[in-house]
């Protein structure tokens, strides 16, 4: 790790961040499940694909399913009403909600909000180092270098552009998914890993948004755990 002697910033263990980030997918499923359960009126559009699994609760008071007290988690109590969702198990990832828009949008927006704030802090720091950002290619380099370094202690491995606003960023060993391995085999590993990728997609979109650039970011797993991020903007570069 390179550490500027003038830089007074503090550190935490990277494990702490990864444990936190790994919980985002199950948490998003649990939150979505709870909200879809508790508000049938507002969930009709998103629940269409999962109508069979969503228990309709015809309560007029939508907040009635929200608790009014703090309940400490224990080993033998379910974490949600999703079947067999007990601490230490991974059944929650087999919920039919896994690929539901409610869940993926929620994960993406965790990333988006983080990206917006992260851009501000990193820009402030890199300005002090004399980094100049003048065009969109500089912004992409900023993502590949500064953002990735901060998040994953490594840089993006490749950056390509068609010069018409589309950029392709490749991380040949994407850290958030590199240890994922399902007992059900590679196809299950791939389909679940894809959901985890909405977080970095959101982060990239948030960073670009902080520079005033609207974008559409998607990710694909080229050869596990290599990930390709496709970024579409309307800017000709």
């Amino acid at each position, binding site marked *: 790790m390179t550490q500027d002697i003038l830089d007074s910033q503090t550190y935490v263990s990277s494990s702490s961040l990864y444990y*936190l980030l790994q919980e985002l997918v199950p948490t998003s499923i649990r939150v979505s499940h709870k909200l879809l359960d508790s508000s049938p009126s507002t969930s009709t559009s998103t629940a269409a694909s999962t109508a069979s699994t969503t228990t309709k609760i015809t309560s007029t008071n939508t907040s009635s399913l*929200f608790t009014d007290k*703090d309940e400490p988690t224990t080993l033998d109590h379910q974490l949600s009403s999703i079947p067999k969702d007990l*601490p230490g198990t991974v059944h929650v990832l087999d919920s039919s909600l896994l690929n539901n828009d409610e869940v993926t949008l929620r994960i993406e927006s965790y990333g988006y909000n983080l990206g917006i704030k992260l851009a501000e802090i990193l820009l402030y720091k890199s300005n002090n180092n004399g980094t100049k950002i003048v065009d969109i290619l500089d912004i992409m380099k900023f993502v590949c270098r500064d953002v990735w370094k901060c998040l994953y202690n490594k840089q993006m491995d490749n950056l390509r552009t068609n010069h018409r606003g589309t950029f392709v960023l490749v991380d040949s060993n994407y850290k958030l998914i590199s240890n994922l391995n399902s007992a059900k085999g590679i196809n299950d590993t791939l389909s679940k890993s894809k959901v985890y990728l909405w977080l970095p997609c959101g982060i990239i979109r948030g960073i670009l948004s902080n520079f005033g650039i609207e974008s559409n970011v998607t990710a694909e797993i080229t050869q596990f755990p290599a990930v390709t991020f496709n970024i579409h903007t309307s800017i000709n570069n």
Partner: protein
Amino acid sequence: MSKSSNNRYNGDDIWKNNTEKINSELFTLTYGSIVSQLCRDFNHNYHEVNNQLDKMGYNIGLRLIEEFLAKTGVGRCSTFKETVEVISKLGFKIFLNITPQIENWSSDNKSCSLILPDPNPLTEFVELPNLKDAEILKELWYSQILCGVLRGALQMVQLDVDVNFVKDTLRGDDKTEIRLKLNKFLKDEVPAGED
């Protein structure tokens, strides 16, 4: 291994030489965006937010304890007092690079408080919007995830412990205090057919 040998484990050494690190502001921002989105998702029902953070923490604790044991090689503690020392000087040190003060032991040595430094890596730059929403000050425990982590991790080493916040400087309290109370040492499970 025992009390005497546990004292040899040095949190500073492990932190300096054997821990991959990331910027703590990144960690703060990440946690902050999770809490604020949960607040929006649950329409500012802060008990739901606390509970969801507690569940995240509990799941993290179940896994983090194994990495902690593998990294430190720490032995079984002979008393709860020693356990809390290990939590503060090794656990908090190597994961969050802080060493909470241990205070306020009950006379039976089963309850004590961890006082988190202010600010800590979860709460740096955070200000609760107290003017907009009075409930948040009374109900939200912003760093509740830590209670879940501790409860989950201790469960795995056969300690049934109540862990909860009693004070938080974000609420205007004089300090940020986690209360721990040992309920019981869990017995090893016995194979079917044995007594």
